[in-house]
């Protein structure tokens, strides 16, 4: 094998293994034929020092991305995987939209800015906070509201608009976090940084909503938004009581409960239904399980770094138990996803045989 061939095969490793199994030898043979020359000296030089051109590499990168994330034309295994990423992104957007709506309404309510509904008793002032903190938190709540139109745009099929709005929401979140850290002595916790990182990944995940992607089932997602907002609102009303300590379930804990509930419902449903959307929920929930597990672990590490004063004494032990349960759920979901995805064809050629045999 020449150095050039080695280099080309290295580039081909970007492609899924199952795809390479079918096409690699043919691709290598064709590539080497395209660089063949009658000049023996040049041929020897190319064999030792030649590299695949950037345009060839770009075509392989594009193929690798299309195989893994494209909606139309991708083999069933990768189409399912791409659908899982879209479902996870939609769920993330839904949580952000519901949470930011609740936070804004509560912030306005507590500031006495909602007419006809009297403002609640003020919360105890965080120690050492300057007078500006109310205004900064109001600003952060307003900035967070950008997630709501981003979610609605995506659900209603305005995908480009949704991407731009989500990008604006992330930038606004970064700016408002920087402002509250700089001017309101907000601690720069791991949870804050983790949240921003996940938001940025979420914006990247929205790029998988390509033109060929199946339309979002807007009725189900709007209903899920209403339910999610109701759950978060109920939790927030319990959380923001002017009494201390807070209840044992913190925000990460609530996400753990929602994730484990959704996984339990899903696992009971997949036993009976096998449509692509349902099947894609298994890897989607596996992705979400790792995101929630990360949040849980980061927030527990914040408690150990900054102390958990103000929180219920059971919050940390409960948090550890939640991490264990979510970790176990993640493992189950990964195993189920691997089994499901392995059964689906990974190349177009396999897909033909699969669809013929499953008729």
């Amino acid at each position, binding site marked *: 094998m020449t150095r050039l061939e080695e280099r080309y095969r290295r580039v081909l490793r970007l492609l899924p293994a199952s*795809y390479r199994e*079918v*096409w690699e*030898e*043919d*691709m290598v*043979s*064709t*590539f*080497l*034929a*395209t660089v063949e020359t009658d000049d023996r000296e040049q041929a020897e030089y190319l064999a030792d020092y030649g590299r695949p051109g950037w*345009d*060839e590499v*770009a*075509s*392989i*990168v*594009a*193929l690798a991305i*299309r*195989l893994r994330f494209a909606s139309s*034309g991708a*083999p069933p295994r990768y189409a399912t995987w791409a659908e899982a990423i879209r479902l996870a992104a939609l769920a993330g957007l839904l949580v952000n939209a519901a949470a930011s709506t609740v936070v804004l309404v509560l912030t306005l309510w507590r500031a006495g800015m909602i007419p006809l509904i009297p403002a609640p008793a003020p919360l105890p002032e965080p120690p050492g906070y300057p007078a500006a903190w109310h205004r900064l938190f109001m600003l952060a709540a307003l900035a967070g509201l950008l997630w709501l139109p981003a979610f609605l745009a995506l659900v209603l099929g305005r995908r480009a608009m949704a991407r731009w709005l989500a990008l604006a929401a992330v930038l606004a979140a970064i700016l408002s976090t920087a402002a509250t850290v700089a001017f309101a002595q907000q601690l720069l916790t791991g949870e804050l940084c983790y949240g921003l990182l996940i938001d940025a990944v979420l914006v990247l995940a929205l790029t998988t909503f390509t033109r060929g992607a199946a339309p979002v089932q807007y009725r189900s997602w709007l209903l899920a938004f209403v339910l999610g907002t109701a759950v978060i609102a109920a939790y927030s009303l319990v959380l923001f009581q002017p009494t201390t300590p807070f209840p044992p379930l913190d925000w990460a804990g609530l996400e753990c409960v929602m994730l484990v509930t959704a996984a339990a419902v899903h696992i009971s449903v997949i036993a009976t239904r096998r449509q692509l959307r349902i099947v894609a929920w298994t890897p989607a929930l596996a992705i979400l399980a790792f995101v929630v597990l990360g949040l849980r672990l980061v927030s527990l590490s914040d408690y150990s770094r900054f102390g958990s004063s103000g929180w219920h004494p059971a919050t940390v032990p409960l948090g550890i138990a939640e991490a264990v349960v979510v970790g176990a759920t993640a493992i189950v979901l990964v195993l189920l996803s691997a089994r499901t995805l392995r059964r689906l064809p990974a*190349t*177009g*050629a396999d*897909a*033909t045989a699969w669809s013929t045999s499953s008729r």
Partner: protein
Amino acid sequence: MTEPAFFILTALVDEPRHGYGIVGEVATLSDGRVRLKIGTLYGVLDRLVGDGLVERDRDEVQQGRLRRYYRLTESGHRSLTDETERQAANARAATERLQAWRPASQGWAS
């Protein structure tokens, strides 16, 4: 049907070809305008095989290298015929419009 898929099917009409043969034939058919990269070629081929428009013809070994030949299926032939008729109808409609059209400035001048 994408342009690379159209040209790949066209390249296989007269005889089975291997990957490199397809790349060369597509360049000839398009007067050098379409130069298929390997990733593009095999991405499209995988789809065409998956859709049953192209199938494997035979494998040959030349200078120690595998050469896999592909041929058009009946379904591929029909699909290319339909696409050609569609493109020809589109071209006719556009040509008629272009021939009937005169720029506004030309109208004033005459």
